[in-house]
């Protein structure tokens, strides 16, 4: 019983460690927060 719980705790700990590593070291960048559709006006059409 203890072995099973120990394995679960170990697996969750490892998953948390990997997730934290990716969260800190990941290079995906931040998706655009301010960009989007912009209406084309007169100066864009010159």
């Amino acid at each position: 019983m203890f072995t099973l719980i120990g394995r679960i705790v170990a697996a969750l700990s490892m998953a948390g460690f990997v997730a934290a590593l990716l969260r800190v070291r990941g290079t995906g960048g931040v998706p655009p927060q301010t960009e989007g559709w912009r209406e084309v006006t007169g100066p864009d059409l010159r």
Partner: protein
Amino acid sequence: MRIAVLGLGASGSHVARQLGASDIDEILLYDADSARMRLVIGAMSGSAAARSGEPDGAGADIVILATPGGNHLAAAQQALANGAHVVSMSDDVSDVRSLLALDEQAAGRGLSVLVGCGFAPGLTCLLAVHAANLLDEVVEIAVAKAGTGGPECARHHHRAMKQDALDWIDGQWILRRGGSGRDLAWFPPPIGAHDCYRASLPSPLLLQRRFPEAGRIAARVTATRRDRFTKRLPMLRRPHADGGPGAVRVELRGRKNGVFETVVYAAMHHPSVASGTVAAVTALQLAGHGGRPPWPAGARGLAEVGDPLPILQELHGRGLRLATFQGLTWNA
């Protein structure tokens, strides 16, 4: 300058309205439904230039074909025989193919046949060329359309979903099943995100003539699950008098200074109004309004008329809202 408009449905009546607000000597209007024709002429009472015309547009210098798609070839041939330029609004693939085949005949008479002059194709062709001018090399073009114009446009949308789509992939035409290829396209507000599917659409045919080097050209339309499920059945209910508001979206991927970039342009409006405005402005440019040099004789789509800016400027001035999506540049 005399301009004839044949077909006064949802889009044709907007062509007439746009011409009525322009400096035209005479506008000849014809519709097989005489009551409809009287209604449109009556609504244009402020424009002294509008009067009823002949079924073949006889007497006009430019004939705008705004009748339902599928029968534009005969009308265009008659207009050419009468010595008139032709502006076709058809988005039917067979119409577009056969009208483009009139190139030699039109060139021989010193006349122009402008094909697919509506919302999509038409405005999409102009936006594609405008977007391509921002790139050194075009790799891929994706066109999407949301919304329909009048009842005939809705019926055509229904038919197009059950016919094969033409995709240009790596130098050859590939037939794809209509209703396949779901792609989530983001249109400007208030249209928003919609699933789009392949259908029998002429945009790739017209764009490939301008961008033969592109690796991939495809077009899709928005559709619901019910549209796809019932595509092989007759329409289950009468189409709306006007299926707007709608939008078109053109996405070009390519390279600029060695960096892979994506350029997205869109336009938002009721498709019937936008189509009518595009056809009217095209005819006015053909008539020499705006001071642009005359287009060479022959048959072509709006992607092949050179600089798209004069037409886009005029469309913008007539209330067509254009937009670009920013935030899509990355290194590859």
